[in-house]
C-alpha cells in the first residue's frame, strides 16, 4: 500500500521525476494514481525525506 506523509513531504516532485508509469503528479500536494501504480518503490527510494512509505 502506497502512503505519503503530507506534512513531511517537501513538494519537491522527485517522486514524479522517477515514476516509470506516470502514477504521480505534483499539484498542491502529491497525487497518486493507485490503478497506474506498479509498486516499484522508486518513489520511496528517491524521496530525500522519507515522506513516502510503501507498506506490504
Amino acid at each position, binding site marked *: 500500500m502506497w502512503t505519503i506523509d503530507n506534512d513531511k513531504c*517537501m513538494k519537491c516532485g522527485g517522486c514524479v521525476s522517477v515514476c*516509470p508509469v*506516470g502514477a504521480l503528479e505534483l499539484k498542491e500536494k502529491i497525487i497518486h494514481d493507485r490503478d497506474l501504480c506498479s509498486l516499484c518503490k522508486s518513489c520511496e527510494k*528517491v524521496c*530525500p525525506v522519507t515522506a513516502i512509505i510503501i507498506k506490504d
Partner: protein
Amino acid sequence: MYDVIVVGAGPAGTHCARKLAENGFSVKVYDRRKSIGEPKRCGEGLGENAQELIGKIPARCIAQRIKGARLYTPNGKYLETILNKGAFILERKVFDKWLAEEAVKAGAQVQSNTFISDFLKDGKIIVGVKGEFFKEPFEEKAKVVVCATGAESSLRKKALNIHSPINLIDSCLQYEMSGIETEDDFIHIYLGNEIAPRGYCWVFPKGDGRANVGVGVIPGKQKARYYLDKFVNSNPKLKKGSIIEVNAGCVPVGGLPQNTVADGLIICGEAANHVNPIHGGGIKEAIISAQIAADVISESLKNNDVSKKTLSKFNDNWWKQRGNHLKKVEKLREVVEKLSDENLNDLIGVLTAEDVVDFTRGEKLSTFAKILMRKPKLVTLAKHLV
C-alpha cells in the same frame, strides 16, 4: 492562439520565451507555482559565462561572487583552483523573476499559478494545452508547445514517455544556513563514499555568514537527510549555524534522451534530463537547451513546418553542442562513483584542480584514464573512460 506556449517559467522556459519573442513570435509561458523562482530546488551556483547568453545579471540577483573552488577528498585535504571566469551564487527567487521579466520586456506573456494538466491533440499532433488557473479549467492552442517543466512533471511522460530512472537520479537535501563560518569567495565540494555516495556535499557561500549547505546522493537505504545532518554535525563551523530554509529535490545524473521532440512539441532543459551528470548543474544547461529550442522553433515557424521531422533539428543540434560532452561526463561519473575513498585520496591527490574542472566539462578525460591505469585494479575503469 499563440505561436508558442511554454510550460514552465524556470530558466529554460523564460529564456526560450524571450528568444522567441525577440524573433517576433507570440509566446505565452505558464508556471504552476504561485511565485516564479520559489521554492528553490538548487544550490544556486552559476558560472559568469552564462551572461554571454542571458546578458549581464543584475546585482540584486547575486548573493555572492565566487572566485574559486575547493575540492575536498575523504582525507580532508583539498585541491584549490581559481576559476578562469568567476561564478555567482544567485538568489534564485530574484534571478528567476528577472529572467521572466526579460521575457515579458521582449513581448512574451507569463502567467503563474497555472497548472497545465495535459496537451491538446489533433490525432498525434500537439496543438495546445489544457490547464487550470485558480482551479478554473481552460484550453489554449498554439502552433508549438515547449515543455520546460523540469524533471518533476508528468507532462514529459505524457508527451514522450520520458522519466528519470531510479538508477539515474540523485536525491538531494539542502539547508540554507545563517551564522556559519566559511571562505566566502570559494565554493566547497566534498567527496567520499561515507560523505555522499555517488554525489557530494556542497557549501555555496551567500555572504554574511550565510550559505547553501547541501548533499546529493544515490537513492538508497540512507536518505539525503542522513548524510546532510552527518556532514553539518561533523563540521564545527557549520554545526553552530542556524537553518533558515530547507530545500529538497532530485536531479537527473544521466540518461540523456536521443529524442525529445514530437509533432508540435519540444521538451528542453531539465525536463529533457539536460543536466551535467557529475556536478548536477542545470541552470546553464537549461539556458543552452532553451536557446537551441528557440532557434529551431523560430526557423520551423518561418517555414510553417513544425513536424517532428523538422523539429528533430533540436535533437541534432543539442547533441552536437552539448550531448556529446555530457555523455563523456556521464562516463566519468560512472568511473568516479566506483572509486573507494582510498582511491579518491590517491588519485585526486595527483591531479591539479584545473584538471578536475576540465573533466567535469567532459574535456581531457584521457589524462584521468592514464592516471587510473597506474593501478592494476582500475585498468577496466580507465578503459570505460576512453
